[in-house]
């Protein structure tokens, strides 16, 4: 322990290599600040330019992530172990940036129709993305906490972005109060872990837990309690049952483009942290936390899928579906990291990518179908969509099938890999729960599909769906095609996920 402490060059200013390790985050953070400035000069009617700028910034960041991917072949930590410069975080960054890009592309039209097109929107999206990217690489409890808060606060504001709308405000306040509540749990868990191991850097915590150089010997209940509390905090963020309560309400109330963004990115970033903390920092406590992960996974699958059955709003249904999907991802977390050879992590990574693509596409459809001043997400308002927007409906149908896990879509291989890892590591019951609930999930996904293909009755209200813009169409096409491509040419993404798992810090 002393040796490790000595290894930290105390009171030395960080070097430039630390900056390189943080390059994507720096670019995006810089863009965030620049956007704030730009907002002041761009005229109110030209705010679409801001979207363009954000897109360019995101693309630039993606470029740097690509560069860093090669650079990070030998992973290391920067800023005294606060931040991991490894392919795992870059993989997650890629998903996050891709999602953010797509969201930025569909936003202008939506915001204009809803009458809330302000420059702050893009700033906050960029800030939240920055926070998530920081979370994906965070390798100290402190950075994890701050990154979580950064993304959360940005999202609280985004949820309430429609200022004069009660639903939006209500959802924001709910998110904020419950989010703060859950943050306290997360934080308390961190405190306990810090107290037991004496460290906040994950590498050192991992070392301490692995070598049993704890304050108490053997493993102490306070350490376990700390891990459990952290798990609860993260479970809240990934919206896993029974800590999912905010999800449906917030997803429904928030502006749809925001829901699109946060439904995907929060989960991706939080899962990155979950994996890093639990599978790689605290594998020694697996016998303890695995029980909780099991229960949470099963509860999420059951609660999410069952509750989704009785919904009548697409946004809410997708919220519950998101809860269920979190449950499936948790299966990948529930396999013993010490013995599975990284299969669970790879499976979750694949699942995350597939989920991001698919869920984003599904929400994007709702986003670009929005009416003037209102979201058209009720089941009744998408009835007969296929007869007026055949391609959109077909894409939505395919995306829903992917969410349900039909081959040859990416969603299938996500589930397949997760179940495989569970079965290969002796967790067949989890896989059985997974398939049981998957079968249920088909119902509500396809019910939406069927609704779109139901001929509207003569007396039905004729909804004013937006016209599909080029960018909106491109987003839907990209997600749909991507869903198919990753469902057939699995090896591409799988190989990347495998190399992302290699050298994960702390490994």
């Amino acid at each position, binding site marked *: 322990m002393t040796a490790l402490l000595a290894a930290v060059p*105390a009171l030395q200013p960080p070097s430039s290599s630390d900056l390189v390790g943080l390059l994507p985050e720096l670019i995006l953070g810089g863009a965030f600040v620049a956007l704030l400035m730009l907002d002041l000069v761009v005229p109110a009617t030209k705010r679409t330019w801001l979207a363009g700028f954000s897109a360019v910034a995101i693309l630039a960041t993606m470029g740097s992530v690509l560069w860093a991917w090669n650079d990070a072949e030998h992973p290391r930590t920067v800023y005294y172990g606060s931040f991991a410069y490894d392919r795992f975080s870059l993989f997650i960054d890629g998903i996050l940036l891709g999602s953010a890009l797509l969201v930025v592309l569909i936003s202008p039209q939506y915001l204009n129709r809803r009458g809330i097109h302000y420059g702050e929107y893009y700033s906050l999206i960029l800030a939240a993305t920055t926070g998530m990217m920081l979370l994906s690489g965070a390798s100290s409890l402190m950075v994890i906490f701050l990154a979580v808060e950064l993304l959360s606060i940005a999202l609280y504001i985004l949820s309430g972005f429609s200022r004069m709308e009660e639903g939006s405000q209500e959802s924001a306040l709910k998110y904020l109060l419950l989010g703060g509540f859950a943050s306290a749990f997360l934080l308390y868990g961190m405190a306990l872990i810090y107290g037991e191991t004496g460290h906040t850097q994950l590498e050192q915590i991992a070392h301490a837990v692995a070598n049993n150089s704890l304050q108490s010997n053997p493993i102490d209940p306070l350490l376990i*309690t700390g891990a459990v509390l952290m798990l609860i905090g993260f479970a809240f963020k990934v919206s896993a049952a029974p800590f999912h309560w905010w999800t449906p309400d917030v997803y429904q109330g928030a502006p749809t483009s925001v829901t699109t963004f946060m439904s995907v990115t929060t989960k991706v970033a939080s899962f990155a942290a979950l994996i890093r903390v639990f599978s790689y920092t605290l594998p020694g406590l697996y016998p303890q936390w695995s029980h909780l992960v099991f229960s949470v996974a099963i509860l999420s699958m059951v609660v999410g899928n069952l509750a989704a059955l009785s919904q009548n709003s697409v946004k809410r249904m997708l919220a519950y579906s998101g809860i269920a999907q979190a449950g499936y991802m948790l299966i990948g977390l529930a396999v013993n990291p010490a013995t599975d050879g990284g299969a669970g992590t790879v499976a979750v990574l694949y699942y995350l990518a597939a989920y991001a693509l698919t869920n984003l596409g599904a929400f994007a459809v709702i986003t670009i179908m929005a009416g003037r001043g209102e979201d058209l997400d009720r089941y009744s308002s998408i009835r007969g969509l296929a007869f007026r927007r055949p391609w959109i409906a077909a894409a939505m149908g395919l995306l829903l099938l992917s969410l349900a896990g039909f081959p040859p879509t990416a969603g299938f291989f996500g589930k397949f890999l997760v179940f495989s890892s569970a079965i290969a590591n002796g967790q067949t019951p989890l896989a059985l729960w997974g398939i049981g609930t998957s079968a249920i999930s088909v119902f509500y996904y396809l019910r939406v599909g069927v609704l779109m293909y139901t001929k509207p009755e003569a007396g039905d209200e004729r909804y004013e769906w937006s016209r599909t813009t080029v960018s909106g169409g491109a987003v839907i096409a990209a997600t749909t095609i991507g869903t198919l491509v990753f469902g057939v040419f699995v090896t591409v993404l799988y190989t990347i996920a495998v190399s992302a798992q290699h050298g994960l810090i702390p490994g």
Partner: protein
Amino acid sequence: MSLVNVLIIVVSVLAAMGALGVVFSSQPIYSALSLVFCIGMVAVIYLILNAQFLFVVQLIVYAGAVMVLFVFIIALLSPSSEDRPAFGVRFIIACLAVVAITGTVFVTARNGVTYSGDTLRGAVVGRADSATDPAYARNAFDFSVDNIDGTPGHEGPGNVQTTGGQLFTTFLLPFEITSLLLLVAAIGAVYLTRRTPAGGH
């Protein structure tokens, strides 16, 4: 039991009472005041635990800025209705949770954690050598402590200096993130409370 320990326990009890005041006050303003009191008591504990910097931050930022903001908002919105916690299922669950959490943590902390010695190295209030030097014995508020690596900091920087130094080196990244955080919060506050839309449609 040393006097310091007794002092801590007394302050703790006061802090706990303040906490209960937050929850049980019928008016938000009383809650806010109870919270200020609680925060103040906690600050005292910080001081005893050699966290002088935090003691100051707690008082200035928390008890000062944040709570004033609360009071200001309470005054602004002037909620009319009285809001006393009702005795119901939630109340019972809350009480059980209080008992369970406090009990669990206390019991496990007492039985489980065995820190290396009865008296911690550097755990003496004041200078490390104050135990042997009666001249410093009463000076419980001499804000200095051992170095972080355990070597006695006879001439070393005080607590505030150490903390500051760490903030700008080892913990630079978190520190920088907080700046981003505050910026975001500021944008949010400005955006949300802006009365007339500055643009848009």
